[in-house]
């Protein structure tokens, strides 16, 4: 499992792996918001948590179709499926690698971009923490979507249509755990449900995704 993780990380980090593309995309989305709605800092401050969450979510979506597509095309996915490691473990490692190369950098960049959007001072800690806890769920759900669409020729657009509705609860609870804190309200419920969704996806999504992969490799 560790070997697979290292291989995926190496593939993502070397040239052509697309590492950094998501970060650039995140920056551009955040930069476009003031262009769209005007540079008024008070307005930006109120929408900053939501924009950062939506930006991170869309940036995460961008790299999903690479999770299985290349391995499927060159046949290494067939080898992984026949390897002694259960396919569920492969899926979990793929999702973890995706998170380490996408979710984690986005989380680290979010406070910096929050500065651009005039995020109020109290929001940085929760912005960081909610993304840290929430983005793994995005990677796992995205891995499920990638597993379903892996056999399709032009699965990219369909992938977003399938995955985005699944992201709704994560987005709501993630953005709420920041905004509620900024409104001086308790964000304990929102944050613990966000953590629960993440743990839930770790536990069950690998099984659904592995099942979908087996169907696609049949």
């Amino acid at each position, binding site marked *: 499992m560790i070997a697979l993780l290292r291989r995926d990380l190496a593939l993502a980090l070397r040239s052509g792996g697309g590492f950094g593309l998501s970060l650039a995309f995140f920056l551009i989305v955040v930069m476009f918001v003031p262009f769209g709605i005007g540079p008024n800092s008070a307005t930006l401050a109120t929408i900053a948590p939501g924009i950062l969450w939506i930006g991170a979510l869309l940036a995460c979506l961008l790299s999903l179709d690479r999770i299985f597509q290349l391995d499927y095309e060159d046949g290494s996915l067939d080898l992984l499926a026949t390897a002694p490691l259960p396919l569920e473990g492969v899926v979990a490692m793929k999702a973890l690698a995706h998170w380490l190369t996408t979710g984690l950098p986005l989380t680290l960049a979010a406070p910096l971009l929050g500065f651009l959007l005039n995020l109020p001072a109290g929001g940085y800690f929760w912005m960081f923490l909610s993304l840290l806890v929430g983005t793994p769920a995005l990677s796992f759900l995205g891995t499920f979507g990638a597993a379903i669409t892996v056999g399709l020729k032009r699965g990219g657009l369909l992938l977003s249509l*399938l995955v985005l*509705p699944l992201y709704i609860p994560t987005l*709501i609870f993630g953005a709420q755990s920041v905004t509620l804190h900024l409104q001086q309200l308790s964000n304990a419920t929102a944050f613990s449900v966000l953590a629960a969704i993440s743990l839930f996806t770790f536990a069950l999504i690998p099984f659904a995704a592995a099942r979908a992969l087996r169907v696609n490799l*049949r």
Partner: protein
Amino acid sequence: MSLWEYANPRRFMRLTDIVLPWSAGGAALLMTVGLIWGFFFTPDDYEQGSTVKIIFIHVPAAMLAINTWFMMLVTSLVWLIRRHHVSALAAKAAAPVGVTMTLIALFTGAIWGEPMWGTYWAWDPRLTSFMILFVFYLGYIALWAAIEDPDTAADLTSILCIVGSVFAFLSRYAVMFWNQGLHQGASLSLDKAQHVADVFSNPLYVSIAGFILFFIAMVLLRTRTEIRARRMSALIARERQEAA
């Protein structure tokens, strides 16, 4: 004699030969009676005026919109567990009916909401949940359309339906947490006191029964079409094999 016997496509076709005309006829009759009774023979509400009468379309459509997804979940599970093709085809056949019902519920709600709430659309939990349900339907239908091999398509859409059900359910509670509602509580319930006066609820029951029969007729008709399409492609494949 059990329900599973009708998983055999031939038996299913023979049974639905009989059931389909009855459910279609019953739907036509009950919908005509329920809607005419509801529209022309009920008094105007003292607060809502005649706009209250949209309830005879809105409530049955909304009920079916949710229950169609539930039916798809059950038939998807049956397909994954027992591999009955009719079950997978029924799920495929039901999805467009469900998405239409969702749209009808959203549109009739908007038409009613404008004079009553002063707005066609508000980000109310119930309205938002229906919008979310709508995108879940779209994803499901798009996945069916995208995959060529019928068994692969049935497998993958079933898995999507199960995972989607969990997250659709979760989304419903998420939006309830996220915003307070404008929409009134349930119009009908089994365990609580009455919410709607008798003059309105009686034609509503007739109308709901009509919509349910209409749904059954539509799903049976569409499932039969799918079975016939499947038979036809099998025949074409066989002919091609013989020719080669």
